[in-house]
């Protein structure tokens, strides 16, 4: 039987959402081509996670080992090399996440498997697959094909495949012996470091006024801050603003920052790369201001304004002040 393998992603005892998304997509593909879905679960003390996965897949390939307590690309590569050499899956799905980006390219190169990264669409095409991915920060989509024979590896963007509720499967947990030994690793896990707690918790705000690359200079931030103050909103931002050290990390909305669900989210000068959208798509109402009418933010916003932020924001501020008084 042909097999699609999903590599489960979990951290500190919790399965990450991308795993369910990949299983869901994997099952949809498997039904179309007459394959089964196996979930590779590597860890230590993860039998509870295995039980949770069991009814969702044909099997859980469980590799338990003390050396797998924390993720490490080197142990993952060793274990998965053995597993995939034995099982020869038609397709392997891995998250295009901080974890998947760290081990999938090396594993694919080691196994000489064709790899397509950060895919948002996967379609079966005979014995191969057709992929959709994004270029230029999400402004362009591309159709990509494999040039070589499988088995194939695809890394999947978080949130690209919403989980579809499917019937339970009579899954089984298959214990796979680990090949890891105490031979030295060139890379050793030390610890996790939590994000520093800041003065402001943007996840608690009802109104967020968020700035992005379009703000251009740190000196322009007060302009938006005054507007935020006028409506009683809290200032937040997208990644480029934090990278440039204009606002502290605790103000960052997005995959590597905070996930927020305010009543109103106003995105100013934010193009709407998926890493940002992933952190704010739960907002009640989204108002986006951007000078590029094709900015991806407009496809997730409730209301859009195509304008130069430096022209429109001062007008908005004055209007709010005037109308609040009246």
């Amino acid at each position, binding site marked *: 039987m042909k097999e699609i393998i999903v590599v489960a992603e979990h951290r500190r005892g919790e399965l990450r959402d991308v795993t369910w998304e990949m299983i869901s997509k994997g099952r949809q593909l498997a039904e179309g081509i007459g394959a089964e879905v196996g979930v590779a679960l590597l860890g230590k003390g993860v039998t509870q996670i295995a039980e949770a996965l069991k009814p969702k897949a044909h099997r859980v390939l469980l590799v338990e080992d003390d050396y797998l307590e924390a993720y490490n690309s080197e142990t993952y590569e060793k274990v998965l090399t053995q597993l995939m050499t034995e099982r020869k899956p038609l397709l392997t799905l891995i998250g295009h996440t901080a974890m998947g980006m760290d081990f999938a390219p090396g594993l694919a190169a080691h196994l000489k498997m064709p790899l397509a990264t950060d895919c948002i669409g996967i379609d079966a095409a005979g014995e191969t697959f057709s992929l959709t991915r994004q270029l230029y920060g999400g402004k362009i989509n591309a159709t990509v094909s494999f040039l070589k024979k499988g088995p194939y590896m695809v890394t999947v963007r978080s949130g690209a495949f919403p989980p579809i509720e499917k019937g339970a499967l009579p899954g089984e947990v298959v214990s796979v012996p680990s090949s890891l030994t105490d031979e030295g690793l060139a890379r050793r896990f030390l610890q996790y470091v939590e994000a520093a707690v800041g003065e402001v918790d943007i996840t608690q705000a009802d109104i967020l006024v968020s700035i992005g690359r379009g703000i251009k200079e740190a000196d322009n931030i007060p302009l938006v801050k005054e507007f935020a103050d006028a409506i009683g909103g809290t200032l937040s931002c997208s990644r480029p603003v934090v990278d440039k050290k204009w606002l502290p990390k605790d103000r960052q909305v997005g995959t590597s920052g905070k996930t927020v669900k305010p009543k109103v989210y106003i995105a100013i000068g934010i193009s709407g790369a998926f890493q940002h959208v992933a952190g704010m798509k739960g907002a009640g*109402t989204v108002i986006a201001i951007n000078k590029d009418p094709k900015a991806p933010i407009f496809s997730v916003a409730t209301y859009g304004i195509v304008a130069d932020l430096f022209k429109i924001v001062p007008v908005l501020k004055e209007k709010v002040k005037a109308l609040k008084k009246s």
Partner: protein
Amino acid sequence: MNIVVCIKRVPETADADVSIGKSGKDIDKSGLAFDLNEWDSYAIEEAILLKEKLGGMVTVLSIGGEDSNESLRKCLAMGADDAVRLTDPAFDGSDGFVTAKILSEAIKKIPYDLILTGTQAEDDGYGQVGVVLAQLLGIPHAALVNRLELQDKKVKVHRELEGGLEEVFEIDLPAVLTIQTGINEPRYVSIMGIRKVAKKEIKTLGVSALNLKAEEVGLSGSNIQLEKIFLPPVGEGAEMLEGKPEEIASKVFDILKDKGGLA
């Protein structure tokens, strides 16, 4: 401490109106400004910071035509010692895997303790070259590094995870690290700075100098190929507010009042 940094020159599309070019396989690049890939600017800055502290050589590599000299010179102006451009008509159509293979052959000729790349490129966003490079060179790696500290024959790195969490590893040198944006503040390069390095030689290496065969690189060596590009579907999209700024402002006020956006 000898450091090799791999960089790429890319079109700046963050603020640009992007349209599909005639080939249907790439965007229309006429009228776009080009610059050093943003992730790579943090990688080269990190290399130069390390060199300033520990000494050694910083060599910067790029695959591309003569246009790429512009980005290589920017790195030289920032403080890199040497620049090498890998160029050959046979390289056209190379995917992420082949890109890493070409770089690995060039790096084998250079003494190194540490290799830095950007985590990904702004244009194709594969996010795989650095990690494949480590595999091909048979050395350890870490991706998405947002802090690093060199110790004797080791490097301690922080990897940026989701939700603000970081993961700390200790890695033996030599190693490849893919650098995340925000790790430092890339220095400003003045026109005078660029002028000072304008005459500096940029060596070029092609397929034969890299001990590669033409069929191993370009499209024929690649695992994936781009078929076509298209504009992303817009979905339902936003209700656009139009009119004079004053009128738009009134509409925004009404929306804020209605949706709980005034406190």
